[in-house]
């Protein structure tokens, strides 16, 4: 069953077409990695799907509009690591995690005991319970990212959208982070849509790859990606067979 359906999505920014008629479908339980070179439009595609940028075409979540889907607590989002995060921002890790429940609250929004329990539960699952009363700005990059992941997962979303979540993490934190995501994907069947520049690492975790270069070059499994004629044409045969370890940042 399709959880996400993107039809002929195009984005024009500053008079320039940065994404051209992208169409793809994501099945429930898929782990899709969106990869591509620098400036290929990976983050732009993610932001358009999330409604953060104007676009033409259509985006449906389980056949419904984004707003309806969000209201049903079904979407979790983890932005790129917040390098702009103010080190003195006056909020504890738990306050940040709790902000993930605001989507389904009606005006005026109020937090309940159940919300607090849900925050404790997800922090416990992600093994960050000891961070609950620590200021967010005082945490390490890896810890901050896990707190933001807890914020995205607190409502037990059906789909989790992540935008280069490990860009500033050390290799150990990165591995722990991807293991956690995979666990949620395998055990709780959370659909994952992840932007990454690390194509080889994505081969390890993702069930499907979407290769983007302003238009969709390839969409399918990693095995098919390695044998794809479209990719051979795009890279040139010799480069395609020696897959790049890492593609540049978006």
């Amino acid at each position, binding site marked *: 069953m399709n959880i996400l359906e993107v039809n002929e999505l195009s984005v024009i920014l500053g008079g320039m077409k940065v994404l051209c008629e992208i169409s793809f479908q994501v099945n429930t339980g898929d782990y899709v990695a969106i990869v591509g070179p620098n400036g290929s439009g990976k983050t732009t595609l993610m932001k358009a799907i999330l*409604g953060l940028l104007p676009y033409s075409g259509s985006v449906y979540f389980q056949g419904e509009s984004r707003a309806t889907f969000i209201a049903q607590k079904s979407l979790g*989002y983890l932005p790129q690591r917040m390098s702009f995060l103010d080190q*003195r921002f006056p*909020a504890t890790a738990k306050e*940040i995690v709790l*902000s993930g429940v605001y*989507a389904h609250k009606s005006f005026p929004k109020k937090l309940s005991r159940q919300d607090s329990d849900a925050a404790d539960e997800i922090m416990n699952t992600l093994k960050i319970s000891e961070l609950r009363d620590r200021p967010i700005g005082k945490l390490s990059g890896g810890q901050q990212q896990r707190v933001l992941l807890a914020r995205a997962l607190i409502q037990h979303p059906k789909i989790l959208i992540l935008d280069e979540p490990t860009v500033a993490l050390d290799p150990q934190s990165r591995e722990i982070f991807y293991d956690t995501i995979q666990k949620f994907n395998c055990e709780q069947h959370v659909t994952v849509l992840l932007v990454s520049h690390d194509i080889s690492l994505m081969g390890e975790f993702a069930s499907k790859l979407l290769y983007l270069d302003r238009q969709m070059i390839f969409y399918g499994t990693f095995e098919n990606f390695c044998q794809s004629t479209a990719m051979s044409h795009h890279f040139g045969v010799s480069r395609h067979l020696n897959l790049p370890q890492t593609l540049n940042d978006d």
Partner: protein
Amino acid sequence: MIDLIKQIQEAIQYSFIQRALVAGSFIALGCAFLGVFLVLRRFSLIGDGLAHVSFATVALALLLDTQPLLFAMPLVALASLLILQLNEKAQIYGDTAIGLVSSFGIALGVLIASTANGFNVDLFSYLFGNILSVSLLEMWLSIAILLLIILTISLFYHDLFAITFDEEYAQVLGIRVRLVNHILILLTSLVIVLGMKIVGTMLISSLIILPAVTALQLVHSFRTTIILAGIFAVSSVIFGIFISYLLNFPSGATIVMVNFSFFITALLLRYFSS
């Protein structure tokens, strides 16, 4: 010491001091509460920008011989929306948009003041503030605006928190970011206009910035930061008014200096505790 207490007791008997204490505390509280959101969103200089626009509107009101604050409120509110529009639609950076509107406001004020003689003394009191001349109407307005600010923050607290921490994520959550931003800026414009009487257009942004930035040195919880900023703001007004009364200092500048001393103390406390 007993003499000092006697002098303070004597000061409290005066109705102009009572009005100054009430209006000053309420405006300072409003500025501090909004200041926490504005400072964290790096929008704190909007106080300065809107104060300069207020200067122009007060000059115009004095020229037209109308009540300056009531005349200024809608015009400054419009200017605040213009800053947001410039920021959003014309894709001009927030600080640049503030700078544009601010310089336009001060230039217009100077031009109006230069074309008319006879009201420059009144205009001067808005430039540097004159809390001891707060009228009954201004006192009631300051109470009403603080109540409006508290009500708004209570109703939109979680939205404001989410937007302040991560505006993009708030948008994904379906929070009406634009609406909340407009409400925040409109309230700021109202409190700025009234704050002119307390510390003047030159110093009003200090009431927005200093209590918030002082509280940020000491606490790590969002709610506590707002409460602590309010406590610093009210304390600075009360101490400032009495110190200025006892030492015959200008009250606006004294309030700002008390605020600044709180900030330095908090900074030292944080430095030595870490």
